[in-house]
């Protein structure tokens, strides 16, 4: 298989507009006869479904929550980037492009990243027109702040609830299409298989989560916008239901999976406090605008943080990376936190935490201003931990947060299965080996509002006149039977262990060996541990309650089954990449504690092909070429 990214020719800044001008169109009368399935109602899915509906296609949209408004995009706190240059601080499209390419440690595709930067300005216009109440200055114009890894203020925000407000904007657009009859919404539905006939995506099989029925849907094209899989570690900043199931099952049907091991570990989350926590809540990166990160200089310093004098504190990010200080990119900040804790200088009851301190900021601008900026985050922190961050510094530690990896897509966001597209966090496309803060809301919106409406039309122009596959086609029978068998297997298995117990154990294995730092030996042993765990899971999992009704244990079991497969692939991916780049830090490849990239040998996207259960996954490489940026050592010093 040769991977063709289908990057249009022409100079980088003109590629997208040239491409759009060459794209085939579908006339309105024909659109009515074309059906599109959109799985996911987050920013990527809702905006795509709304755009398709408005264009006149017939759309079926699915989500597993009870309402499309609850997709995990809702939880994004900090903001969304756009090269508007409203602050007149030297920002422009090219700079956002460069920051993103550099932030991703030169492991992303230039053409995609440039398009992301180029379309960033339109997304703010779109959101404002929908009534998204972004923060404003006293003059009535839009306000901005900074995020990690950049030196300009280009992040737009709505208090600490930017994702919520953006999602409600696209939920409104989606609702409008549902009302007008172009989009049919299917909440509480989980996609469990993809139907492929003659190499083309023709439909999906879903489980109705309320009744347990296995349902079939056919269409001319299928779009997956199912979000990230960072929940694979069990403890993460993601929602409980976040999963890899849709993309994994598409992978099993032939879609290549790219860079599975590129997972972002976010530096500032509420640390693990006990053994029964289900989630690690994010404390937004925006806090690093005003909060200072430190640990005691001395090992095992048991004093209360406020009793430790200034000269005995190590503001390690400011010390090591003076140019960016507390705003160094996430991968670097996470690694630095792990290092100081490994040295025995960690804070808090477990020693696996660092301080995020607002003392100086409160003294500088006053409590009122800090409260306006971060009030809801401070309240959330206090509710969960019982600590008041206006008085005592926050305790924070890195946690799994975002998957840069995902289904491989070409420039048109089409996977290696014709007719199957992937948008938003579930594809691999724009963030390389490390995502910059506030770039993923951007990507989800850009993919859904501005890219897929064009590239889909081009694809569907070739589907004109074809009928959707009948849902009694043998391919549907085969897929539905497989799904039904899996569910029956879970509910009738004479096992002893709960699904969660397996998920926690998988999470521990991956956290130890395939997260902030990795070694060949650790990864090899993780692969065999994951294999054993998977065998035990299928032998010993216990799912009481029956199949033909709402049963959360069945949902979890299906997701964990896929996580067990994906977990192994992540380790293979991390093992073959014998270099350190972005979030992928191999301890063998470092110099003076800094990551060492190997551009000679590893300047490629790793795209994996499924080889059947137990088969060794097959690696394909998409070589990356850099014309407009020069891969350099990423320095934030």
């Amino acid at each position: 298989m040769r991977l063709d990214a289908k990057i249009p020719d022409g100079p980088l800044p003109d590629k997208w507009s040239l491409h759009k001008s060459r794209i085939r169109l579908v006339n309105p009368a024909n659109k009515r006869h074309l059906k599109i399935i959109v799985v996911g109602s987050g920013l990527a899915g809702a905006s795509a479904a709304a755009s398709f509906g408005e264009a006149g296609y017939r759309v079926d949209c699915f989500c597993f929550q009870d309402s499309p408004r609850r997709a995990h995009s809702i939880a994004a706190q900090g903001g969304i980037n756009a090269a508007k240059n409203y602050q007149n601080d030297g920002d422009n499209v090219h700079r956002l492009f460069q920051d993103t390419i550099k932030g991703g440690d030169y492991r992303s595709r230039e053409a995609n990243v440039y398009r992301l930067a180029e379309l960033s300005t339109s997304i703010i216009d779109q959101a404002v027109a929908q009534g998204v109440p972004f923060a404003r200055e006293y003059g009535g114009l839009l306000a901005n702040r900074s995020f990690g890894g950049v030196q300009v203020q280009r992040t737009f925000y709505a208090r600490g609830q930017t994702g919520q407000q953006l999602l409600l904007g696209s939920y409104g657009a989606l609702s409008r299409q549902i009302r007008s009859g172009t989009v049919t919404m299917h909440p509480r539905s989980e996609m469990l298989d993809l139907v492929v006939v003659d190499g083309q995506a023709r439909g999906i099989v879903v489980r109705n989560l309320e009744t347990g029925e296995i349902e079939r849907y056919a269409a001319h094209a299928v779009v997956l916008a199912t979000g990230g899989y960072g929940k694979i570690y069990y403890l993460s900043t993601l929602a409980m239901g976040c999963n890899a199931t849709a993309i994994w099952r598409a992978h099993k049907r032939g879609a290549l999976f790219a860079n599975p091991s590129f997972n972002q570990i976010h530096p500032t989350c509420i640390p693990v406090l006990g053994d029964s926590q289900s989630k690690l809540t994010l404390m937004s990166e925006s806090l690093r605008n005003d909060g200072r990160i430190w640990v005691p200089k001395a090992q095992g310093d048991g004093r209360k943080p406020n009793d430790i004098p200034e000269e005995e504190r190590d503001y390690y990010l400011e010390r090591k990376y003076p140019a960016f200080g507390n705003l160094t990119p996430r991968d670097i900040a996470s690694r630095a936190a792990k290092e100081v804790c490994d040295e025995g200088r960690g804070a808090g009851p477990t020693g696996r935490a660092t301080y995020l301190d607002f003392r100086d900021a409160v003294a500088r601008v006053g409590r009122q201003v800090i409260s306006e900026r971060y009030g809801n985050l401070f309240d959330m922190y206090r509710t969960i931990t019982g600590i008041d961050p206006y008085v005592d510094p926050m305790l924070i530690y890195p946690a799994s947060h975002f998957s840069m990896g995902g289904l491989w897509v070409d420039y048109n966001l089409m996977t290696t299965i014709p007719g199957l597209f992937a948008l938003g966090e579930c594809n691999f496309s724009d963030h390389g080996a490390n995502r910059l803060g506030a770039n993923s809301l951007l990507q989800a919106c850009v993919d859904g509002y501005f890219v897929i409406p064009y590239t889909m039309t081009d694809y569907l122009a070739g589907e004109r006149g074809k009928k959707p596959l009948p849902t009694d086609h043998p391919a549907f029978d085969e897929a539905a039977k497989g799904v039904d068998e899996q569910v029956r297997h879970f509910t009738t298995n004479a096992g002893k262990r709960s699904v969660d117990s397996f998920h926690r154990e998988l999470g521990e294995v991956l956290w130890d060996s395939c997260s902030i730092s990795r070694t060949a030996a650790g990864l090899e042993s993780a692969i065999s541990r994951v294999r054993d765990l998977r065998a035990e899971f299928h032998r010993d999992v216990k799912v009481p309650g029956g199949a033909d009704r709402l049963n959360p244990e069945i949902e979890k079991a299906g997701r964990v089954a896929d996580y067990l497969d994906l977990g192994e692939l992540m380790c293979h991916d991390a093992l073959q990449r014998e270099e350190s780049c972005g979030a992928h830090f191999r301890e063998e490849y470092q110099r003076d504690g800094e990551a060492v990239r190997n551009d000679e040998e590893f300047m490629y996207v790793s795209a994996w092909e499924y080889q059947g259960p137990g088969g060794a996954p097959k690696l394909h490489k998409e070589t990356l070429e850099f014309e407009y940026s020069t891969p350099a050592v990423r320095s934030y010093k």
Partner: protein
Amino acid sequence: MRFHLKIWRQERRDTPGKMVGYDVDGITADMSFLDMLDRLNERLVDKGERVVAFDNDCREGICGQCSLYIDGRAHGPGHATTTCQVHMRQFEDGDTIHVEPWRARAFPIISDLVVDRSAFDRVIQSGGYVSVHAGTAPEANSIPIPKDRADRSFDAATCIGCGACVAACKNGSAMLFTAAKVSHLSLLPQGRIEAQERALKMVAQMDREGFGNCSNTGACEAVCPKEISIEHIGRLNWEFLKAALSRGK
């Protein structure tokens, strides 16, 4: 810590339900209420029993998916909170805790603690948006909006659609939910244009869904996780009245 739970169990929409007692132990003060229910469910799995179904997703108080009536209060003890943000340190060791689903005519029970809130979606579908085209829009800064107005709009827009307001209201009214959306949009110039039309359509849909009338007791505001003020109901009434008058109703 240990607790005695009394939980509403109901297999399906059309089967009868009842309160069932369970004991849980090994609970620590820093566990969240939902961590505690996870613990209970894990015990039920061990015993081969059907787990207690409850809605939840983000577990950080923003998605609006969690929804429990805890000891007679929507989202349990505490102020301006969601069920997933309730922690066991808010209870006394040995307490008996009653856990029930939202109860309202417009929110039928699906199973155990899970209810059907799709009526909210249909209220939004009836007009809770600005009718802009997806994909094209004027330059964002061409519409300056005074900061305090944008802030007030945000205060209404922050609604998470959990339904606590309906559950807490003796009439099962959705006025606070609907008013929040009407206020959010009508405070902004972009949303002004359709303000009256929107109010009429959303109120009509609310009635169709079987939500009750508002009798201004403020029970909704008291349990709202996002502290949405009943002042917004005034704005909804005002938009509605203007619209009704201008249509000669």
